[in-house]
């Protein structure tokens, strides 16, 4: 670690884990957690590039502010998503995506 490639590798692997989880798992809450994992992986890439692309000897703060906004939006998204899951559970009594076929036609 310590090189830019090391950070990018960790970030990419984290994203891959998240994407695999979204595809493989059938529990909607776990799918949601894997989405969070992918968002955080993207954040790590942003912070790494902001640290390695120095502007006047300081990290690029615009990149870090983008991460700040991303975290804010992700928090709002989690709140809304979990409310939708609770509403869904009330209506269908399940959190398995395979049991939710009413939109499938």
């Amino acid at each position, binding site marked *: 670690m310590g090189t830019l490639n090391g950070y990018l590798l960790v970030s990419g692997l984290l994203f891959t884990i998240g994407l695999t989880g979204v595809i493989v798992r059938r529990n909607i809450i776990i799918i949601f957690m894997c989405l969070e994992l992918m968002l955080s992986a993207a954040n790590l890439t942003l912070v790494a590039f902001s640290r*390695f692309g120095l502007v006047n000897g*300081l*990290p690029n703060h615009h990149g870090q502010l983008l991460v700040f906004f991303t975290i804010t939006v992700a928090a709002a998204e989690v709140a809304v998503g979990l409310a939708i899951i609770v509403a869904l559970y009330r209506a269908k009594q399940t959190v398995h995506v395979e049991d939710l076929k009413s939109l499938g036609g």
Partner: protein
Amino acid sequence: MLLFGVGVVVNRNPVASALCLVVSFVGLASLFISLDAHFLGIIQILVYTGAVMVLFLFIIMLLDLKEEARRALNAWAVAGGAVVALCLVGTLLHVLGTFPKGEATLPPLVVPDGQAYEDTKALGTLLFTEYVFHVQVIGLLLLGATVGVVALSKKEASK
């Protein structure tokens, strides 16, 4: 950290998954701090491992999810997941192998004479000068999310 990330996907018990995610996020915060982004590291711990994960655990407890019955995993989904993961890792290794700038080690920060590097101050200054409009938009977004959540979780009494 990556191990616990795998734990999120592999664990059949949602609570264990969520706790693995907490450890993974703490590891991520430590990586942020190792990149001299102290403010973002603290925010990551406060927002993600504090607020978001409490919300997740709360919902898991509220819905009272038991350990999943070992229902047969969809073979197509597992195969698709494996293929996508392998493709992504292959692409990643190829791209990183042909990215000479990636060999750079952490460049030292240049701080004017003897002051400590204060990223919170710099970020705050930027946030409330150049990005003040964005802050207001984010505030509206959070307000909208709050109203939406309340509307969603209200029992449908009118019907």
